[in-house]
């Protein structure tokens, strides 16, 4: 998928673990892990807002669009 989730990078920058972030977000650690590993199919605006608030960042810091070679042409 051309959308890359950079949650792991932001979590490392803010020195926050999966369990701590999950507890602050009010979701399970498994769901944070799904998001972190890029397995997620979609993200709710409410979750994204909460992540941005906790990690003090912008949605663009979490999500990145990397065009696939076929879409570049």
């Amino acid at each position, binding site marked *: 998928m051309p959308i890359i989730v950079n949650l792991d990078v932001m979590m490392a920058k803010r020195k926050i673990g999966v369990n701590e972030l999950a507890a602050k977000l009010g979701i399970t650690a498994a769901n*944070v892990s*799904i*998001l972190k590993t890029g*397995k997620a*199919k*979609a993200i709710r605006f409410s*979750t994204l807002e909460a992540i941005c608030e906790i990690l003090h960042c912008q949605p663009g810091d979490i999500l990145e669009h990397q065009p696939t070679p076929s879409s570049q042409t």
Partner: protein
Amino acid sequence: MSAKNIAQFLKVIAWVIFIGTCIKAGALLLNIGIAEWVQPLATANLYDGLNLQPLRQYNELYYWQIASSVLFVFVLQAIFGWYLIQLAQVLQIDEPFTQPVAKYLTKLGQTALVLSIAALLTNSMAKWLDKFVPVLATVKAHNPASAEILVLAAVLFVVAYIFQRGIALQQENDLTV
């Protein structure tokens, strides 16, 4: 009726159907064997009034064709019952959209389709043979109606397709954070 009770009820019904159809197929197979090797008179009542004696007297080959066709239909009914048990075992009423459920629904649809074709062929053969020897009534009494089973197969295929879509939606929902 709670979800757990529905699942239990479905399991019991599936087992009853499977055991019933197994007894039917087993009894016919046993009686065909008895009629062949022990007592030829058993052909007069192979299973629950299935009288193929006039046909056997007329032509042995036609007798075997009809007897094996009816047996095949009975065995298919037992296989249908078996898949129904498998379906009842994997079905979770709270979260029904799973891959095994779709798999067994497809298998049930395929079995129903083969069953309807087998029933149609058996009926057609009996109808043709009825010109020479009265056999249609006795075969029809033990052969399921192919048109109804064909409709059932179509419904099962549609339900299986809906389940496939449901699985995709559920997976998407599970992976939405």
